[in-house]
């Protein structure tokens, strides 16, 4: 495991439910690692704690037990080495598209010319050239999320954390965004940790898929995705290995429904 960029070892997260005053175990002993330049998805049914894993890596939430190391150092608080792309986009509505993308560089003290130059470059990368001076509300959801991705990439983090980033756009746009994300990844190989509940999305994008069990989240299986790149939906919908892998993972998720612990009354 040494030499891996991000190492999660024996991660446990529990909290006290505010209403019942009972201890709830959200994640129960999770271990995996993400290598430099890898695209890894974490997949599981809702409530399995996958977003909590991301929040812990991002430094938004404290872990209960175990360790999360980035380049060998434990995570203490949020930082620019771990940029986050949110399902809600979380763009700053009072800033232009350009200023949104340049925000991280501004926070780190880059001069206006430098940061705007870099921001333009990344806007071009995500296909938003010409939209620099728009405000986020003037853009469609898909375009807003492109800004969200550019905003993180412009900051050149060690890892880009993506929390169901394409869940709130329409199906057509989602497929385009997925294809564009793989294109960007193939060009630049940023390390990406991708949270999703969509099996096809996980298989389409990833090198590896971490399949979780329902709450409390544990690793069910880590599946290597051997489908050749570049990946485009037009080719993959009829691709045997894509369909087989997808079905295998759906089966993995299905099994859990049988041995799931009964829900507390």
């Amino acid at each position, binding site marked *: 495991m040494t030499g891996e960029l991000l190492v999660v070892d024996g991660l446990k997260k529990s909290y006290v439910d505010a209403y019942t005053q009972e201890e709830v175990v959200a994640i129960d002993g999770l271990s995996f690692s993400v290598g430099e330049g890898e695209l890894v998805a974490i997949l599981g049914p809702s409530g399995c704690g996958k977003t909590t894993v991301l929040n812990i890596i991002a430094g938004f939430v404290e872990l209960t037990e175990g360790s999360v190391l980035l380049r060998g150092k434990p995570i203490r608080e*949020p930082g620019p080495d771990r*940029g986050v792309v949110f399902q809600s986009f*979380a763009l*700053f*509505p*009072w800033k232009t598209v350009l200023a949104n993308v340049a*925000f991280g560089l501004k*926070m*780190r003290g880059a001069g206006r010319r430098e940061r705007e130059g870099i921001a333009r470059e990344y806007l071009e990368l995500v296909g938003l050239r010409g939209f620099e001076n728009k405000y986020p509300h003037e853009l469609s959801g898909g375009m807003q999320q492109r800004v969200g991705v550019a*905003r993180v990439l412009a900051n050149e983090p060690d890892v880009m954390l993506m929390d169901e980033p394409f869940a709130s756009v329409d199906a057509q746009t989602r497929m385009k965004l997925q294809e564009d994300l793989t294109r960007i990844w193939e060009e630049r190989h940023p390390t990406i940790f991708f949270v999703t509940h969509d099996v096809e999305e996980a298989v389409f994008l990833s090198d590896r898929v971490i399949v979780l069990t329902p709450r409390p989240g544990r690793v069910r299986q880590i599946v290597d995705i051997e489908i050749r790149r570049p990946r485009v939906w037009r080719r993959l919908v009829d691709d045997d290995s894509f369909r087989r892998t997808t079905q295998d993972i759906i089966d993995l998720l299905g099994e859990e429904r049988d041995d799931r612990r009964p829900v507390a009354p």
Partner: protein
Amino acid sequence: MASAAVPARGILRRVARSPVTKALFPFAIVVALWWSIAAARVFPSAFFVGPDVVAAKIGELLYKGILVGYLRDSIERLASGIVWGLAVGIPAGFLIGLSPLARRFSWPLLLFFQAVGDIAWLPILIIWFGFSLTSVTFVIVYTVIFPLMVSIVAGVDSIPTDMVRAARALGARRRHVLVDVILPGALPAVATGIRTGLGYGWRALIAAEIIVGTSGIGFMMFDARRAGQVTEVFVGMIILGILWYATDALFLAPFERATVERWGMVRRAGAPV
């Protein structure tokens, strides 16, 4: 003939579509209605006068200089109350919004003093400060700061967690988050708070002038009532409406258009659909 009619119709259409015409049109209807009721003498003229009489009275009062003097007094009092109200209310609102300690301490007090309405302070203020600008200013400040503070606290609370987290994950330190996320993020609430506060402050001013007054629009109206001068009461009511309309058109609306509306964070109340 036919060729001359086209541009004439074009001008008419342009006039009909101009924003000034659109803004004045509803008032024209109300004034016409008012005028017809007065002309039909439904009510005796000692109780109800028409727009022509009121317009003549406004002209007369303007000519005598009384109206301008009273107007200046009222606006001066309001301005001083508003400035102090904003200077106290905005920082206090953010303090209570951001500091859990400040919130725990001040929330019960806020509720208590909000219940002791503005006018309820006047008796003790008159004992302390007499019929002075201080008394009036105090009442206006008092009226302005409560809706302002409550609105700002709600605004700070309504900033999405993800937005603060996004900033932190992009390298923003805590003080950056305050300046770059919390302050602009709460601006719609600040704008609403100022709008509500100003509206309440304006009403408090008129009420204070009726009680404390030696001059001002509120004083003029109440004084006219004592003398049975219905026309002057009407004049006062119309002036109040015009002034609020002007405040909105000159200060509030342009500020909101340039900020929160441009950013798509709010849609102006009453904006055309």
